[in-house]
């Protein structure tokens, strides 16, 4: 049976591409056609009209599409996560120079970037300069929520002081170069593409904002899943196996070479290889920063659709006004992320799956073993934990902090004038 899947050219499309190139789909009796799309809107259209049976989506999108945030509701579900991390926050060379002048970037720590940006924004506001402009790839993208989280954690009142826009990933480098945007959060290889072209400087990995955050999922329409259960199980079995292969460090170079091809990412292999081999490039004179978990495709229970992850996204959607306050977070998450469907795929492969659907996030800085399975580092940049039993309280606490940030920013200039 022919299955059609769509993807947008990003490094974390690797599980789909590897499953095809290395014959995993074939081995499970599937003839899979991959369709490369130029926009998330186009991916969504093809899902909705049945032109494709499934697609690689941002981990937040099955939720936002099911809840009809920017478009009519589409009944999309996911039972398989295909990658963690994989993003970068890149700023223009001009902004980077200004951030350096604050003196707060010197130690190279992730926290320094937020402090530098905040100091710079405060300075620009005092001088009456226009707001900085930051881009993500979609209104309800994981990238947008990482950007907002990072800025709020740094004490920045982004609603007042930052303009947010959407730019397609392949245009990020030129947009930074032309000054259309000052910074962005985008998936690889587009951060390193910008560095290669001298258009930008990566100040942070998405990994730094939230270690091992879910990034891409395999999404299908619910009615397709229900009519094609056994095909779905075969499909996900192939992808789980491919993901395990590409996750190994010794295979990453080959993955880069596969992805670089014209009909996939169409980006030079050595640019694609940077993040895949766990490196984040800085200035040419400085050594690359090593981030072994820059891309995670399989380890740390990466493929399991944790309901706590879905619920976290929902809290952030409410936090930034994409969803109404009163929404049933638990109910909405459970309707879209399907852990039992994952368990069925895992059972078919004879591999273990977590026995619970929720875990608390942001609670440990080191890898640790739980029920015999390694869980990677899991901290948010502000060290705030997410208690999976209390999503509502978590949200209310953040909203209170956001309100205080907003008030402090407004009061600030008045106090200054009084001195």
């Amino acid at each position, binding site marked *: 049976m022919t299955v059609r899947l769509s993807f947008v050219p990003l490094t974390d499309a690797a599980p789909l591409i590897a499953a095809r190139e290395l014959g995993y789909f074939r081995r499970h009796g599937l003839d899979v056609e991959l369709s490369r799309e*130029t*926009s*998330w*809107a*186009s991916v969504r*259209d*093809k899902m*909705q*009209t*049945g*032109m494709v049976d499934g697609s690689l989506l941002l981990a937040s999108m099955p939720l936002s599409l099911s809840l009809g945030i*920017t*478009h009519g509701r589409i009944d999309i579900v996911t039972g398989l996560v295909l990658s963690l991390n994989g993003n970068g926050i890149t700023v223009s060379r001009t902004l980077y120079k200004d951030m350096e002048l604050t003196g707060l970037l010197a130690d190279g720590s992730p926290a320094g970037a937020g402090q530098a940006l905040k100091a710079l924004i405060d300075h620009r506001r005092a001088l009456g300069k226009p707001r900085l402009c930051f881009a993500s*790839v*979609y*209104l309800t993208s994981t990238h947008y929520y990482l950007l907002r989280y990072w800025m709020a954690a740094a004490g920045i009142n982004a609603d007042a002081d930052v303009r947010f*826009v*959407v*730019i*397609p990933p*392949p*245009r990020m480098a030129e*947009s930074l170069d*032309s000054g*259309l945007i000052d910074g962005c959060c985008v998936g690889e290889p587009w951060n390193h593409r910008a560095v290669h072209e001298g258009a930008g400087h990566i100040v942070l990995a998405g990994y730094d904002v939230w270690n091992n955050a879910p990034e891409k999922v395999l999404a299908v329409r619910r009615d397709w899943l229900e009519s094609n259960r056994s095909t779905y199980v075969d499909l996900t079995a192939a992808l789980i196996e491919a993901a395990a292969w590409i996750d190994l460090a010794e295979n990453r170079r080959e993955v880069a070479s596969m992805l670089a091809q014209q009909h996939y990412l169409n980006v030079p292999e050595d640019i694609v290889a940077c993040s895949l081999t766990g490196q984040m490039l800085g200035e040419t004179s400085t050594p690359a920063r090593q981030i072994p978990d820059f891309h995670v495709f399989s380890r740390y229970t990466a493929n399991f659709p944790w309901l706590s992850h879905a619920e976290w996204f929902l809290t952030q959607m409410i936090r930034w006004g994409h969803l109404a306050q*009163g929404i049933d977070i638990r109910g909405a998450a459970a309707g879209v992320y399907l852990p039992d469907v994952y368990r069925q795929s895992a059972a078919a492969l004879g591999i273990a799956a977590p026995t619970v659907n929720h875990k608390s996030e942001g609670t440990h800085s080191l890898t640790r073993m739980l029920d015999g399975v390694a869980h990677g580092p899991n901290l948010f940049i502000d060290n705030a934990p997410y208690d999976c039993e209390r999503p509502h309280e978590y949200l209310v606490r953040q909203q209170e902090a956001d309100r205080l940030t907003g008030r402090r920013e407004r009061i600030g200039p008045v106090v200054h004038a009084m001195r």
Partner: protein
Amino acid sequence: MLRIILVDHVAERADFLRQALDQQGYQVVAVLSSSQEILDRVDILAPDVILTDMQSPDRDTIEDVRYLMQRRPCPVVMYAGKKDSESITRAIDAGVSAYVTDDISAEDVKSVLDLASARFRLFKAMSDELQAARQKLEERKQFDRAKSLLMKHHGLDESSVHRTLQQIAMNQRISLSEATNNVIAMLAVLPDKEPRRGGSKS
């Protein structure tokens, strides 16, 4: 007269469409071909329809600008070449949007745009109605919840509940809906206890 923004980076195709639209009496207020132009000009130009290529990488930018538009958002109508005819047929069947193929006649352009506008207006009206109905239902649910809490903890009867909530709303200069939510937030965290008998507190 419908004001149209055309977003296309293929000059020949944009020219063809602009002429066809002009002929049919539409006002093409701009032809945009870059992210910069979309971000700077769409909201300000206040179009009635945005017309763009189904394969355009600018679709996500356009949608984001639409979502944030100060004025009411407008439909996005998409077109595609003949080789995408299967996409077009399916999209029309699914009611996603109206599509124009690039070998279409000027008259067909008009009927497609008229259809798109009419369909969009209908959809918007239905969507607004649904939103209002949901809102009302939610407020009704909240009211019932506040009512049962007030009866439980303060021994109020049905008619007193509405009066009490209105009084709170008036005193604090907030809406009835907000007063209802505040009462729920307060009373919902109280421990269960014997309901007060009427007369001990009014």
